[in-house]
């Protein structure tokens, strides 16, 4: 049973010269409850555009997106989003950032704090509740952003290269961390990345998109059992799957370079 249906969604942008560029071809994707779908593709392939359309931050030219059989029309608290850029509100502390959506829902203050505290714990930021975002490292900021999105208890989590700006080591820790949270909370996640390692390690399904204009080229189940340990990254099965996807993505990157 799918909770999110993307049906024939395409996106055209108007160019400055008055022409039109097709960024995303008509795309179909069904997302089932508890899916962790990672979307791979060369830059400019429209993967972020697709995610933004699901979030309601961008509007498709054709097609429709349904969440629980309801047409998506604009952003909402049912789809939490974590961005690549650091989007914590700089004037709010960690705790107040996590409370943002809860306060918006009109929850009593003590309940807001209670929920926010539990998520502070889940993302391992105890002791940093009263820090401002600028006092945190990039990894901590993204963990707070994750907590802020999760605290709203959304139907889905949309993640747009959330670890893209982090250094390699922090990124690997964040992957394990997010995977652990997903395994515990069983959220449904759409995760855009261009890191193949990341896509295979975390995804229950990997979707590969073609060069611009983007379309879904490959949709692959990832068979590794949960809970996954980071050591699977060194197994032969992992390497084989990564090799296969690398070929697929590489072909698209080459295609997109040739286009440019």
């Amino acid at each position, binding site marked *: 049973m799918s909770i999110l249906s993307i049906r024939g969604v395409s996106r055209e942008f108007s160019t400055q010269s008055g022409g039109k560029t097709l960024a995303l071809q008509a795309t179909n994707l069904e997302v089932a409850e508890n899916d962790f779908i990672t979307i791979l593709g060369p830059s400019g392939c429209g993967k972020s555009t697709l995610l933004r359309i699901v979030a309601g931050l961008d509007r498709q030219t054709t097609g429709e997106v349904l969440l629980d059989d309801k047409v998506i029309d604009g952003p909402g608290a049912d789809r939490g989003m974590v961005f690549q850029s650091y989007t914590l509100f700089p004037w709010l502390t960690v705790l107040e950032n996590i409370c943002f*959506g809860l306060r918006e829902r009109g929850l009593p203050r003590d309940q807001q704090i209670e929920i926010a505290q539990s998520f502070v714990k889940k993302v391992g930021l105890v002791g940093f509740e009263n820090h401002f975002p600028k006092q945190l490292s990039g990894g901590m900021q993204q963990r707070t952003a994750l907590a802020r999105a999760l605290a709203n208890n959304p139907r889905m989590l949309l993640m747009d290269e959330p670890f893209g700006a982090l250094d390699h080591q922090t990124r690997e820790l964040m992957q394990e961390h997010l995977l652990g949270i997903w395994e515990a909370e069983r959220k449904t996640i759409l995760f855009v990345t261009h890191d193949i390692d990341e896509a295979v390690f975390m995804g229950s399904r990997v979707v590969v998109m073609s060069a611009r204009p983007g379309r879904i080229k490959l949709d692959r189940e990832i068979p590794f059992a949960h809970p996954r340990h980071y050591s699977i990254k060194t197994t032969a099965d992992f390497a084989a799957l990564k090799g296969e996807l690398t070929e697929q993505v590489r072909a698209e990157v080459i295609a997109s370079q040739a286009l440019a």
Partner: protein
Amino acid sequence: MKPLTPISTPKRIALGVSFFVLFFAVWAVATFGGFVSRTFLADPITMVKSGYTLITEMGFLKDIGMTVWRVVGGFLIAAAIALPLGVAMGAYKPIEAFFEPFVSFSRYLPASAFIPLLILWVGIGEEQKLAVIFIGSFFQLVLMIAVVVGNTRRDLVEAAYTLGASDASLVKRVLIPSAAPEIAEILRMVLGWAWTYVIVAELIGASSGIGYMITNSQALLATDQIIFGIIVIGVIGLVSDLLFKFANQRFFPWAALGKA
């Protein structure tokens, strides 16, 4: 000296003070050395002495009080209207489209040129002073506040929407707090300009205030008093500037965090 290399605080203070010392030294040499006629430029000692007389015997403190009251009064009226209007213009593009051309035009109308007209309309009473300051600061404030609010980081706006923020709470909980430190800076800057307007207004038509004292002194060729008046204005401006800076740091600690 290496470009952009910071210097220590004691060194900075010493250098800042030494220019004042140099300034007074040059002034003293020019006047006591007889290079400049006493009629046109009083020496520093006479200036300080007559300043003392002004304050103790001629009720100059009352003049200072009047001038401060006018600046603060006119500025507060301007800010009280400019704040909501500027925020509304920054947040809502139709409102901006409606007011912006007129405000942009009015900004270039020199406030001092309105003084003769205002004297005709409301006389040389307090309303005229308040009106000059209002005209001089209101349009500037509105435009700058609108720009700051309109430049709110779009990713923060999007994050707020995905957390379930309504349009009204976006303005209240994202646009305003995000712009607040810069708005405070704008207020600080425009208050400085208001100081020049009030003096001009007092020079042309007034029966009290620092500007009035300066015009009176001109008739008596009392350059010592004129200079003392000018220095008093400078000192008050500096003090209000420091108070504003201090308040900004206190109210918006998060804004200063990144600048260090």
